[in-house]
């Protein structure tokens, strides 16, 4: 009975899981902008360069990577793709993913003051890390893509950011709820993400993996996402599976993530 009800609710929830957050993003844009400002001020208050540090920090990391990989180690890939380009376009996207997932886990507890004492639209909160990371890391991504690949790469880089934003949308809602009620996840996720970095073709290309390990990449959605990123920006080969697998997973997550969020809303307000 429950399974039948769930099956009935899922198609609608899948649509809602995409439409409702995007609608909230537009309808509550002023509030979201103020929240972003609040966060930027909070993160950089008292520093000399203020909000500039949000970009300076990752930019210094990019410089360090460039110095190590291109100047000191002189790492090269076979073929026409420059390894530094490949690595930076992958790792910067990975940083964005990591920030969204890690911050989503604790977003309801972190922003509790907002909805403890007022009728605050909770739907905005899982969007906050997503928008913040897209703004900060996205800006750097656009700059680095342009520097590495030329101004012509800007549309593709913007498409990558749009793709990541949409793909991470259900994950952000899902982790926001799970992380709030299952706090062990906050301890576990950093380890999982570190492992994820190693098993995702970021520090290496899929071709560099030993042949017996390559088929296992289909189990890693981030491997598909990286393949899509390098396809869009560097015209590297991509398979239909690289498109279908993340899309299927995304569609499969949209409905449950939205349902879980909607069901947990009264609990979130009650527990605080």
């Amino acid at each position, binding site marked *: 009975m*429950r399974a039948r009800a769930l099956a009935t609710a899922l198609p609608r929830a899948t649509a809602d899981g995409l439409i409702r957050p995007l609608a909230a993003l537009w309808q*509550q844009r*002023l*509030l979201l902008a*103020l*929240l972003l*400002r*609040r966060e930027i*001020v*909070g993160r950089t*208050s008292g520093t000399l360069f203020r909000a500039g540090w949000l970009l300076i920090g990752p930019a210094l990391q990019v410089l360090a990577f460039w110095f190590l990989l291109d100047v000191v180690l002189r790492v090269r890939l076979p073929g026409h793709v420059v390894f530094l380009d490949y690595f930076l376009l992958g790792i910067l996207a990975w940083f964005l993913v990591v920030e969204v997932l890690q911050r989503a886990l604790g977003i309801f507890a972190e922003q509790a*003051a*907002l*909805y*403890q*004492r*007022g*009728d*605050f639209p909770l739907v905005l909160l899982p969007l906050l890390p997503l928008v913040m990371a897209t703004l900060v890391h996205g800006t750097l991504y656009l700059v680095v893509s342009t520097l590495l690949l030329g101004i012509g790469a800007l549309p593709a880089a913007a498409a990558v950011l749009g793709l990541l934003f949409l793909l991470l949308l259900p994950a952000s809602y899902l982790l926001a*709820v*799970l992380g*709030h*009620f*299952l*706090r062990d996840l906050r301890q576990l996720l950093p380890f999982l993400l570190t492992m994820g970095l190693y098993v995702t073709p970021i520090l290496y290309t899929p071709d560099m993996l030993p042949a017996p390990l390559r088929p296992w990449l289909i189990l890693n959605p981030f491997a598909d996402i990286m393949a899509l990123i390098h396809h869009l920006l560097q015209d590297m080969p991509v398979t239909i599976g690289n498109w279908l697998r993340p899309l299927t997973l995304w569609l499969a997550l949209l409905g449950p993530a939205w349902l*879980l969020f909607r*069901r*947990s*809303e*009264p*609990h979130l*307000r*009650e*527990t605080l």
Partner: protein
Amino acid sequence: MNAPAVQTHSTFDASEAAAACRAPVLRLSAVAKRYRMYRSDLDRLLEIVTGRPRHQDVTALSGIDLTVGHGEVLGIVGRNGAGKSTLLKLIAGMLPPSEGSIDIHGRVGAILELGAAFHPQMSGRENVYLKAAIAGLTRAEIDALVPEIAAFADIGPFIERPVKTYSSGMSARLAFAVATAVDPDVLIIDEALSVGDGAFARKSFDRIMAFRDAGKTILFCSHSLYHVEAICNRAVWIDQGRIRREGSPAAVLADYRAELERADTASAQEPTGVTVDTRQTPARILSVVLSADGDEGRSLRLRAGRSNLSVRVRFRIDPTLPPPSVGVAFLTADQRPFAGATSARDGVLMESDSQGEGEAEVMFPALPLLKGHYGIAVYLLCERGLHVYEQATILDALQVEDSAAERGIGLVSLPRQWRLCAGAGSPGETPTAYAEPDAVASSPTSAR
């Protein structure tokens, strides 16, 4: 079971306007709120995921039916833990009801926890924008409101500085200014009448009164029964999650006071009078002098029903404010007020000189207190007798002794006459006479 629902209607078309004036602005139908208690957060998550109950209910409210019309000022009283705050949070939309429906026409503004949820590192102005945006205002609306909010909060150039540099009073003032500036149709006030320092407390009180006078709907929750009675035109008493009594403030509060007095220990913890912060009040009591039977001082011996008691109060008020009113209350030995008077209710206007100083004297002729020890509380109030600037209490001010004229029972002598019937038990008999107490006392057998 009705599906829990909270509906708000923020706009009206012109044809609905007239009807809306008569229609209730707030309607709660069979509202219940149960908090779910879990052994762990994991249990809660499993219930959310599977839909199978893993909790125990704790009922905070049940069977609440309440309709509040435009322009009504509803007082909500009840002991701590009775469910008042839950009720206000439900109406404010902060909590969903477990059962029943809440129908609200218009914007709700809630003053529940002042000074809370400001971001310490953002400026006052930025926090105003954040709060007003949460309340649903557009940027243009907020732009228009900010100067008024800054002026009302009276924080001057601090509006541009981080809130972490504010004093607690400044934060509270700003929070109050924001909550009331968004022009709510329903204003919820939970214990927020004495905000910040004395001058601002008066100002905030005036604003709440202006809301009342403008015909807004106000839900006013307070332990200050004096204020509830003075401000509200209806009251509900919440007890153990249910509406125990609803009606005129006088009737509801009388029952509530009686209940408090029955529960001695509870009433000792719950203030039924008025407490004020006297540190920075714009009006001060300079002196209180009691006099009776040629004696003067702060502790007098009186004769029941004979002595003429005079209470002389000297005060000073900020000359820019209207002259205050004065109240005098008689207290039992355990400091409960049981009788008194205010100049505002008696329609007497005070006067003060150019320095704001003035004096008032109230005389209680043939003071009808019975034998016992009594205290006196003197209140300096706003001109309408609602906001308390300062209170002075004189414990054990009066030691009333028996007199030949007065030997009643209790605290106060009630005017009375006895009717003496010739044949008690014969319904058709005509009373023979009415006797004054002294006459009865002098011929006890005739009263049998």
